[in-house]
């Protein structure tokens, strides 16, 4: 789903987003010391990474990237 961007100009490689994400969407690139979005399809739009990032480097879009299965539509 919908985590879209981690701004590497702002990212300080603290790893809070990596720890915070319950879905293991974000990983730390050890060489560049920056957080990278590794599995965006597993994002459940909880927004916690965006909220916890100390430098506001993360943007989560409210739009889905893959269709969500609903009971009716």
């Amino acid at each position: 789903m919908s985590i879209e961007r981690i701004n590497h100009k702002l990212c300080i490689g603290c790893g809070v987003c990596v720890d915070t994400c319950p879905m293991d969407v974000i990983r730390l690139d050890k060489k560049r010391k920056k957080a990278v979005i590794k599995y965006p399809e597993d994002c459940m739009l909880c927004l916690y990474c965006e909220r916890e990032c100390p430098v506001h480097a993360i943007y989560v879009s409210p739009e889905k990237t893959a269709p969500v299965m609903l009971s009716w539509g």
Partner: protein
Amino acid sequence: MALENVIETDVLVIGGGMAGCFAAVKAREQGVNVTLVDKAYVGKSGATHFSAGDFTFLNPERGHQLDAWIEQINISTEYLNNRKWGEIVLKDSYERYRDLVSWGVRFYEPDGKTYIYRNGVHEHLSMLNREYAPALRRRAVKSGVRILNRIMVAELLKQQGKIVGAVGFHTNSGDLYIFKAGATVIAAGSSSLKSGSTPTHYWTSDAEAMAYRAGAEITGKEFMWGSEPALRPAIKEREQAGKTKVKKSIDVLTRFPEFRGGLSGAMLNPVINAEGGPVIMAAWEAHCGRAPLYADLDAFSPEQKEWNHHFFERMETAEPDKIGLDISKGGKLEYTAGRLDAAQPIPGGAGIWPVNTSCATALPGLYAAGDSCATMLSGASYAGVGLGLCHASVTGARAGLGASEYALKSQKTTIDKRELARLKKIVFAPVERKGGFSPGWVTLVLQSMVVPYFILQVKHGERLQAALVLVEFLNKHIVPKLMARDTHEWRLAQETRNMALNTEMILRASLFRKESRGGHFREDYPRRDDPAWLAWVKLKEEKGEMKVSREPIPQKWWPDLSRPYEERYPRMFPGE
């Protein structure tokens, strides 16, 4: 090359939420060593962290009466609640509240005064949303609990009929972990299908599936959280008020139905259908071609407006900001099923069957707590906001004490090498396959088989049977061929396997219960059938087959059968 770690511990706790942390802390207080594992990060993950934080407890200082509180649950959960457990949970709840306070948990206090929510005679407080899960973690660490994050426990270790530990893997490194435990507490949450808009993708039925495979009994699977029909008086009221004008989607506030996770905690009733009429049951309106549904914000009562105001204040939710929604402005808000889309069960009303008041399961050495433990505090529907976390704290504490007692008495067992090799083969299967099916695809297929409302919400024997044929096929022929291309996908494969098993349980339990009640509605049996179905449906593996059985509730808990049906049951199913 992946490492193999063997960890010996007195008490192993699987899951680091409210239930797991209480279990770990209380066990540690008995002097045993405790290892707490979580497939994500304790204090930041899981249902506990994502809950709004509501905590119900019986407060003698406020003159709360146990009998009145229990009676409300009897009626609202349609008599399938276990009253004995209801009393235990409510009696223990004040002490658990005191624990939380002493552990540094703060409660919502607008204008400096603790806000008290009311639901009938029940009252509850709200823990500050982002603080309480980290506080639980800090307390566990302070007690000397060893926390291991990002470890997906895949199977329980069983020897001579007893649970002696578990096998899991690290979701990043892929290292194998073999836990040898004197006793195990499983507090790994509830179940869902990763579908819909509520962010509950962590609920993948891990606890039930592992316990089921080890031989435990599971119950409560047929009741869907959020599927209860409306109250008779409310429907009459709406009918009398006449139809609300809804211009086709033009005056609808938001067109992002998929982004509704946080709002599912808000009071979004009253709900009206596309024709502006009252909603008896959400899925039924869709069935009759009257979806989409709307929350009519202008028709909110002052109480509902107050509830929503406080909900958004304390949740610090970014969601309305993100989609430009101002709920105070009024208007119509498109309503999505939320929990229903994800096929979630009732908190405290589904999971592993406990056999005593210490939350021991039928498997010696295994204890269950939280949403994984089916005390049936709630019966056929949820007893009310705040009881889930309360139930988790009480069962967690009891399971922790029970497990530590058992661990102190149990003898050290050497793990049978053949059994371990057998489990390792099953656990490693997805990463060892060269070809197979991706967990993402299998999950999508599983969702498309049962998420459409006409399978699990507006049920019918024919459709349940049809879905069961397909889900059985999935479990027999597709799930064993799940393939993981990396360690991340390895966890997903495990979760998919558990979700598929959970789905078969829901379908079999739904087919077995030939009546409608609470969160279980069948078109072919649209009324409650007392006293025949005043019973719990249990599932157990026997000789490789899923066996379904009935356990009647004690007769003294029956409703008064001489009272008219409409009086016994204030909620009205379609077609009544």
